[in-house]
């Protein structure tokens, strides 16, 4: 059996940032892998030190387009803690609503990408069409579909009017109906099950050891939802469940995300009905500190942790951001090992990497001294063909 090493580098047809995985293959099975990052390094932490706290909000928003509200809210929780500012209840409620809308949009996005990776393109089109409902809500409330910029130091910038509230509730009802279809699809459809069950296995103890978080960790039975363990914003007062599953595979991650959608709808309804009166922001002086704080936040991909150190001027001394995918990608080599090459795209997509990029997989056959180039798309097609031969065909759905 020839051993081949392939690099899965950075350039992907369907979004995501650049990442490089180096896979060692024996035949079709992956026996080893390493992860190389750094293609997306932009020097944000250094830039944050030379901008004011307010300007940093807009910088940190653009750490990631899919979870931009998570990063700003987490950062501002630290800054407000150092400045000893009490954020008003109404502002917390509005932040919670936008946070949950973001979670919904992110999970629907993931569902579409997972469908696309499986070969189930109709699911991709359906879920992204439904995602437009959420983007409309966000645009209604904030003015933009991505990068909502709702936050400011001490609260939020815009209020939610009663008309907007009715509109959001109407759209959430539409989405609830559609989610029932996705739950049925995810749990009962044989072709989806064939592609997701026992793929990308990550046992509970390994996941604990590697520090896996977010839906990836929860699918391996780890209770790690920051909203439950260290409630921030209004989560301490709300009624919702922490979703965990015990199958340790991609199927578990799918189920966790779809059920989290249902919990998010519940949360939005509760907060919209509770929306208290009052101001939407408090005034915070430009010079903050000295002091330091760390805080965490449950972003759609997992625990997001920030550290801010203030030194009494209007610019921070140090801002540290650790996005959730950094903790999860360490588990990917384990998940890929002893799996098939055909399952690699699905496994990698299942951690919902907020960085993507696969360039080209180069297969070097040591015996024949030949090099073959696979693109991510080729690998994806390989996976679909591999399963078609075994009777998993999405074109009949």
């Amino acid at each position, binding site marked *: 059996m020839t051993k081949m090493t392939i690099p899965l580098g950075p350039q992907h047809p369907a979004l995501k940032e*650049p990442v490089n995985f180096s896979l060692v293959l024996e035949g079709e099975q992956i026996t080893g892998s390493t992860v190389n990052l750094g293609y997306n390094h932009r020097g944000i932490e250094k830039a944050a030190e030379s901008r004011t706290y307010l300007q940093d909000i807009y910088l940190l928003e653009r750490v990631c387009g899919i979870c931009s509200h998570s990063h700003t809210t987490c950062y501002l929780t630290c800054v407000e803690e150092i400045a000893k500012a009490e954020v008003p209840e109404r502002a917390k409620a509005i932040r919670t609503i936008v946070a949950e809308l973001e979670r919904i949009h992110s999970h629907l996005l993931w569902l579409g990408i997972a469908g696309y990776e499986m070969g189930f393109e109709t699911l991709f089109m359906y879920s992204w069409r439904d995602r437009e409902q959420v983007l409309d809500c966000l645009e209604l409330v904030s003015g933009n579909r991505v*990068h909502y910029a709702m936050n400011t130091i001490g609260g939020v910038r815009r209020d939610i009017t009663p008309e907007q509230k009715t509109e959001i509730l109407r759209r959430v009802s539409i989405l609830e109906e559609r989610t029932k279809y996705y739950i049925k699809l995810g749990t009962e459809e044989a072709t989806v099950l064939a592609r997701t069950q026992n793929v990308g296995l990550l046992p509970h103890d390994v996941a604990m050891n590697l520090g896996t978080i977010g839906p990836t960790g929860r699918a391996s039975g780890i209770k790690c939802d920051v909203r439950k363990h260290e409630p921030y914003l209004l989560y301490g007062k709300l009624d919702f469940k922490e979703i965990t599953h015990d199958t340790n595979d991609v199927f578990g991650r799918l189920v966790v995300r779809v059920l989290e959608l249902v919990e998010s709808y519940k949360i939005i309804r509760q907060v919209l009905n509770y929306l208290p009166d009052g101001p939407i922001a408090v005034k915070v002086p430009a010079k903050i500190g000295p002091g330091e704080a760390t805080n965490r936040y449950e972003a759609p991909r997992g625990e997001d942790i920030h550290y801010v150190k203030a030194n009494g001027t209007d610019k921070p001394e140090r801002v540290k951001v650790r996005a959730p995918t950094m903790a999860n990608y360490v588990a990917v080599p384990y998940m890929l090992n002893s799996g098939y090459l055909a399952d690699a795209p699905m496994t990698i997509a299942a951690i919902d990497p907020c960085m993507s990029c696969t360039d080209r997989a180069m297969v070097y056959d040591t015996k024949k001294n030949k090099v073959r180039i696979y693109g991510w798309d080729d690998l994806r097609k390989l996976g679909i063909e591999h399963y078609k031969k075994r009777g998993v065909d999405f074109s009949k759905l």
Partner: protein
Amino acid sequence: MKIKDKLILWSRLKSPWLLHFNSGACNGCDIEVVDALTPRYDLERFGVVLKSTPRHADILVISGPVTRQQVKRLKRIYDQMPAPKFVMAVGACACSGGVFDGCYSVVSGVDKVLPVSIYIPGCPARPEAILDGAVKLLGALEASSK
């Protein structure tokens, strides 16, 4: 113009194939580019297809301020595209560096690395703007070929 050339030009203008490349973006523009394929905006009814290899593409759609790690790779991909080829810089970061202008790990703006045919500003650029940009590019090509 010979019939053969007219036919080739017509097919190029009526059905441009895109290659999307993320050169260190935050994903905002990327999801809007992919969004343009989804049922609400549906690029495919205009003949636009998102391809995955540079060898098949007419237009290179780039998002993100080009990070230094990506400069070599970006140039390589551009070289692999067959002529005539065009570059579309999507989003404020690709146009001029956006929020990241001045950061040490970023070469602000695609035009410092490649010749850009059309700039689409926005943070992120809306799918309608991306579509509009593509149509304007084609219009300019058609006009210049006469």
